[in-house]
């Protein structure tokens, strides 16, 4: 029975992340509009978009298979699981030990595989193009992310995200050069995996320049709504993973309910700056040619490996 508060908190955190994710996307879009000297849409626009999509009739190609129709739900489920593992507000998550950082990368990989398979399902050239490019980005981004997380794991001696956060947040303040490398690599992976400039333009409508968008060309209505929502949750999850690894101060300890309001405020401030930073990066950089993307990502991978090595070599 002592588990009940923890389980209730876990469910509440998952629901919070799922409901708050579109706001983050709205905030990033607002910042980008301001930087580009345009007037911004409402920060709640993603919610209106989702509601609009849910109301519509789903239009599906005639030769769609059951895999195509299941995928949006599976993607949403995977992202929900990811949202439940990351210590966003506190480290008291009874289900967090069910999946550690390696399983987290595995969840994202599962989502990517299903998304690519659904893209190939209809049998148009755009689907194949999207699937091929999505896996091209994925095959380098996934190891880079894993190596970044391993660096944090080596420093804290554990692969549980909650333990990593507790160790990094509550140790005496120390500068870890390996985490600096890992942070740069993580930023590059975040940009790649969430289909941001410089890898992919999330607002493009030219099919030949799409990477992530090309995999969801055939989806409409509630399926598209679920996929868009899952994408927003993925961005939120990545940002909170980055905050948990590199800026973990303010996350409440296990069982410390009084620290929750502070944790919430600190999280909001961090995400404010993170979203603005993302918009700034997107505005300053230009989209890379497609075959420079593997170079970008292999640099991220090698930086992450270097970070891991630096941990061993500098600590003596």
């Amino acid at each position, binding site marked *: 029975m002592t588990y009940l508060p923890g389980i209730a908190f876990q469910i509440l955190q998952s629901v919070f992340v799922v409901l708050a994710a579109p706001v983050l996307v709205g905030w990033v879009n607002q910042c980008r509009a301001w930087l580009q000297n345009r007037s911004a849409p409402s920060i709640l626009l993603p919610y209106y978009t989702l509601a609009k999509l849910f109301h519509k009739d789903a239009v599906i190609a005639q030769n769609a298979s059951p895999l195509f129709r299941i995928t949006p739900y599976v993607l949403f489920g995977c992202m929900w699981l990811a949202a439940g593992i990351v210590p966003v507000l506190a480290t008291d998550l009874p289900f967090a030990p069910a999946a550690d950082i390696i399983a987290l990368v595995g969840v994202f990989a599962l989502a990517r595989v299903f998304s690519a398979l659904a893209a190939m399902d209809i049998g148009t050239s755009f689907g194949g193009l999207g699937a091929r490019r999505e896996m091209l980005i994925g095959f380098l981004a996934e190891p880079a992310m894993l190596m970044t997380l391993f660096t944090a794991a080596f420093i804290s001696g554990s692969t549980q995200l909650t333990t990593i956060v507790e160790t990094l947040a509550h140790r005496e303040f*120390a*500068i870890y050069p390996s985490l*600096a*490398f890992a942070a740069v690599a993580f930023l590059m992976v975040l940009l790649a995996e969430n289909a941001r400039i410089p890898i992919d333009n999330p607002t493009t409508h030219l099919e030949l320049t799409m990477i992530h968008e090309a995999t969801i060309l055939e989806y409409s209505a509630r399926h598209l709504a679920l996929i868009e929502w899952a994408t927003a949750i993925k961005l939120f999850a990545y940002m909170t993973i980055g905050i948990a690894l590199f800026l973990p101060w303010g996350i409440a300890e296990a069982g410390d309910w009084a620290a929750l309001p502070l944790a919430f405020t600190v999280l909001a401030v961090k995400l404010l700056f993170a979203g603005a930073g993302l918009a700034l990066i997107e505005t300053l950089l230009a989209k890379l040619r497609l075959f420079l993307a593997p170079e970008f990502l292999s640099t991220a991978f*090698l930086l992450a490996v*270097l970070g891991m090595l630096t941990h061993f*070599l*500098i*600590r*003596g």
Partner: protein
Amino acid sequence: MSQTLSSQIVNLLAAFLLLLAFAMLSQRRILTLIRLFAWQGVALALSTLTVAHFTGQTHLYYSAALTVLLKVIMIPWVLHRLIDRLHVRWDVETLINIPATMLIGIGLAIFAFALAAPISQMASALTRSTLGIALASVLLAFLMMIVRRKAVPQVIGFLAMENGLFFAATSATYGMPLVVELGVALDVLVGTFIFGIFFFHIREQFDSLDIRHMEKLKED
């Protein structure tokens, strides 16, 4: 293993130096290379300042000032003027592709650390692990010199090597005598000017700064 603040700052700057060395390996544009070299100079100066502050050796302050003057201001300015007058193109080709270069770079870094491990046991606690990084920067700069095709990045690689040696000196032995430093600095400055003169000659002779043209000079 808690380290003092000073050694942590020096470690951080050392890691920054290594990051810059790798960044120079992976960069294509010459302008960015010059900027990265300037940042290396900043990192060096900051680390010299830190060592000076925490060990109280005043001649290191002058050393840091010299570094800033020379490596952050003068040499990048000279290089900028050089590439302006040579109308050097921005994208630089390499002999082997960039991911492969970075892989070799990682191998060199491991090798440098393995080499420096027994020596750093004897160094003081303040700067134990930085010798390995310094050696790694030297080797990486050397690698950069080998894989580039144009002459200007090769010069930058040579200067980056000197950066690495300087860092090794300040980290392991708290700097060289000021006289030696002044002499080395003068050598580097003169060397840069001479390189510049050579570039003009090469350009006149071959109409390009691609070093493969110089292979025609060998006896057949």
